[in-house]
């Protein structure tokens, strides 16, 4: 979906303002927001791509004006509401009103360090040979799907060069719809910044974008 999250190349947001000696969390609620979001992932009711889509498809004014962990909390609530894990009234009261639904896993204190260390690798065994080779010129296809995609608008239709073949990775566009992992070869593609943005871009720079095979065609 062409949403507010797809920001690459926009110029309207003003300067970057790094905070000196920034703490890891700004307030205790941010700690719990992180922990609940990570913790609820183990319930197995959604995957990484579904949760990304939940956040990026929040109302655009919300997405652009709320803080990062406010967006996380809103995304988490949305995912749980959609699946009947909680009700709007329960979110208001904080009290159980309808029974919990079955979840895949509730990680205990003892299990959590290993669960975090294990991570969630997305590389999968290759079934087919890669469709592109290092050094090959490719064009990013022009797509505007309603659902989730990791092909940013600023590279669509643009020509670049394959610089690395990474292996087969879970394909987010289908995984985000719950339509399966459908792993595809993943490539790092180098785009000249003036190819992407024309003469107004700073000259001589390269932007590397990781693209799945079905985002690319021979050029």
């Amino acid at each position: 979906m062409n949403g507010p999250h797809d920001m690459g190349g926009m110029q309207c947001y003003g300067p970057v303002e790094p905070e000196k000696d920034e703490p890891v969390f700004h307030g205790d609620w941010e700690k719990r927001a992180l922990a609940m979001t990570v913790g609820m992932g183990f319930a197995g009711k959604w995957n990484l791509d579904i949760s990304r889509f939940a956040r990026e498809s929040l109302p655009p004014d919300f997405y652009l004006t709320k803080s990062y962990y406010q967006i996380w909390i809103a995304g988490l609530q949305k995912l749980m509401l959609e699946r009947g894990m909680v009700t709007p009234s329960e979110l208001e009261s904080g009290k159980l009103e309808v029974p919990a639904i079955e979840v895949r896993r509730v990680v205990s204190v003892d299990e959590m360090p290993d669960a975090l260390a294990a991570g969630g690798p997305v590389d999968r065994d290759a079934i087919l040979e890669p469709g592109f080779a290092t050094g090959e010129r490719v064009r990013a296809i022009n797509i505007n799907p309603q659902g989730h995609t990791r092909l940013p608008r600023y590279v669509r239709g643009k020509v670049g060069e394959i610089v690395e073949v990474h292996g087969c990775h879970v394909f987010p566009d289908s995984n985000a719809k719950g339509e399966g992992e459908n792993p595809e070869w993943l490539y790092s593609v180098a785009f000249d910044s003036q190819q992407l943005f024309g003469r107004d871009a700073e000259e001589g720079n390269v932007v590397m974008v990781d693209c799945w095979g079905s985002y690319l065609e021979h050029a």
Partner: protein
Amino acid sequence: MNETKKHSHDHDHSHWSDMDLKVKTLESLLVEKGYVDPAALDVIVETYETNVGPRNGAAVVAKAWNDEAYLERLRENASDAIAELGFTGRQGEHMQVVENKPGVHNIVVCTLCSCYPWSVLGLPPVWYKSAPYRSRVVIEPRSVLSEFGVKLPEATKITVWDSTAEMRYLVIPERPSGAKDWSEEQLAKLVTRDSMIGTGLALLPNEVPA
């Protein structure tokens, strides 16, 4: 500068107590429903507040500077080489290092969200997740670098790595001169978080805080 920015600042501060309440309410509900164990959530907080952070990445960089064989292993398979030092886990499953050299500077971003190599850098700072950084660094990286006080030579080529997939990029900054016989532990003190994102350079030996 603009309404969006002003707006977000208003929210960030005046609504903190609202968020405290909202998040507490949510957590008590999730606990009552048996979806999470609150003590296990404490482990998540502690992990990312104290155990996992840019000191991990600094150790990787210092070793890469000091040990050619290790650097070679990082180039071959960064995830495995980083795991040698005990750094594994979420948002670090598929690591790649990118090396700054004279004339070549690398910067990492996630224009679509906030992808960041947690296992070596911890959680990302607010600016990394912010609209100004995500939007502008791909089109005007020099201008963004100037906001961090970094000015590169005119001839230096900048490569911006947009983390659109699950590959996570760690910048190996250039080793500063004047630290020739330093141990890895000493060298790690030169390696700032921003130097491993590419929005900073490694410190010079005389810049290390006492």
